[in-house]
């Protein structure tokens, strides 16, 4: 006859979302296995040679950006799409959690999974000889917040407007395309000059470049921070405007 407090509700929903994602086999592949694989691939091949640091130092920021994309955009988008199909969103919105609590819970769930990913990737990277610039750790975390927010909002936008099967296809396809050609793990400078201006305004490139600047050089990439904040704001407004609960 009474509701748990707002904080408790959001914490519980966030924990539930994170546990659901981490128990799901496909999500684990996307969130942990593939980023680890990419990390090893970038360390044993010479693709990242000549970018102002050791292979591992240049690789880790990109892999972190990839993690944020896989969890916030693809993983969260797919689970939200299917929850919408099965009426889970509608049911939970009738409990004290409500619509807003549900969204905050999802954002928290993404944050929790991202923390697990950072721990796993960070440990693996340190073992492989990663030596980040300590002065860049805080800027990197600051950059991750609007980055994860932007991808979460984009994932919600796709999940809330398309059928779940289409969401599955679109978010997976975009993940692969952006991972390869979106300036995430491979710096956008590798790409043909003609497409670079378009790629560099994408949230993927902004997050990848920004994290590399922070963790390799210890510098703050202000344009990337602003760009990610703008993406987060626009995508959130679009999600609020077009998200369908049923």
């Amino acid at each position, binding site marked *: *006859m009474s509701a748990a407090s707002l904080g408790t509700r959001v914490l519980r929903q966030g924990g539930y979302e994170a546990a659901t994602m981490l128990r799901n086999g496909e999500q684990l592949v996307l969130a942990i296995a593939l980023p680890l694989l990419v990390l090893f691939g970038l360390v044993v091949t010479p693709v990242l040679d000549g970018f102002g640091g050791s292979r591992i130092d240049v690789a880790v920021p990109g892999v972190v950006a990839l993690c944020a994309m896989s969890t916030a955009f693809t993983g969260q988008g797919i689970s939200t799409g*299917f929850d919408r199909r099965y009426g*889970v969103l509608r049911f939970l919105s009738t*409990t004290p959690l409500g619509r807003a609590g549900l969204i905050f819970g999802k954002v928290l769930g993404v944050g929790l999974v991202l923390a697990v990913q950072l721990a796993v990737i960070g440990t693996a990277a340190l073992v492989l000889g990663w030596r980040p610039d300590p002065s860049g750790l805080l800027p990197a975390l600051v950059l991750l917040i609007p980055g994860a927010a932007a991808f979460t909002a984009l994932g919600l936008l796709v999940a809330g407007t398309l059928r779940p099967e289409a969401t599955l296809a679109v978010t997976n396809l975009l993940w692969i395309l952006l991972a390869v050609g979106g300036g995430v793990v491979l710096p956008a400078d590798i790409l043909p000059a003609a497409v670079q201006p378009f790629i560099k305004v994408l949230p993927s490139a902004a997050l990848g470049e920004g994290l590399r600047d922070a963790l390799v050089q210890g510098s703050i990439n202000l344009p990337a921070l602003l760009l990610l904040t703008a993406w987060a704001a626009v995508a959130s407004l679009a999600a609020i405007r077009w998200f369908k609960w049923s």
Partner: protein
Amino acid sequence: MLNGVDISARKGSVTALLGANGAGKTTTLECAQGLQRPDGGVIRLLGEDPWHAGAHLRSRVGVMLQEGGLPPSSRPLPLLRHVAGMYGNPRDLDGLVTRLGIDAFASTGIRRLSGGQKQRLALACALVGNPEVVFLDEPSAGLDPQSRSIVFDLIGELREEGLAIILTTHLLDDAQKLADYVYIMEAGHTVAQGTVAELTAHDDGGFREIRFEAPQQLVLPETLFGHLLAVELKPGRYSISGNLTPNDLAVLARWWADCEILPTSITMTSRSLEDVFLDISGRNAR
């Protein structure tokens, strides 16, 4: 599209919205639950506008959606615990789980549950917060006979506890068994309302149906039952229905005597909710 829906539900009683698929039952519930916003009209849920419901109001209301709203990748007990965690004063979980027989499949993946098991779990999710008002959209859909009696008994107990229960059904039998008050809906509006007794007694004008079986095939004399409907259901089985008078019974008995027939069975029933429903549907179809 709803137009002309006027419904109220009281504490300690079961209110049923009865109607065919597409009559507007679910839409009506969704407006009352705050899941849809009506373009016009007034809805009050425990005195408040459900569309702007805050956490406190939502904590007083339990909802069982038609499609269940259960995540297939979850398991019954963890899901129930999670939903219970949203409330300040949840129901005793073990009691609810035992009562609804959920303990038998507590850790089976939800996607592998039968329709009846899913319905029972969805009901548990609606009740776990200790609500004062419960909305149940087609609670008997997909229930096997055993689940059905468990669910129906529980709904009866909730009524005794003083909850206001609003449910939809397209099964007349459900409404007749469960409901204190029935609204019949058709094409987006309420076309009849009343207690089951009122609806079935109301202007039935002595409507009765007599069914009897005879040891051999008969030819029903048309003139004998002038104002009644006499039909052969199948060879040897007959139905006489209409506004029967005591005299009609005497005429029928005399006819049996004249033909030297001793029926092997005779039953007489009054109007059922089904007749009311068919009357209304038939009238509107014409």
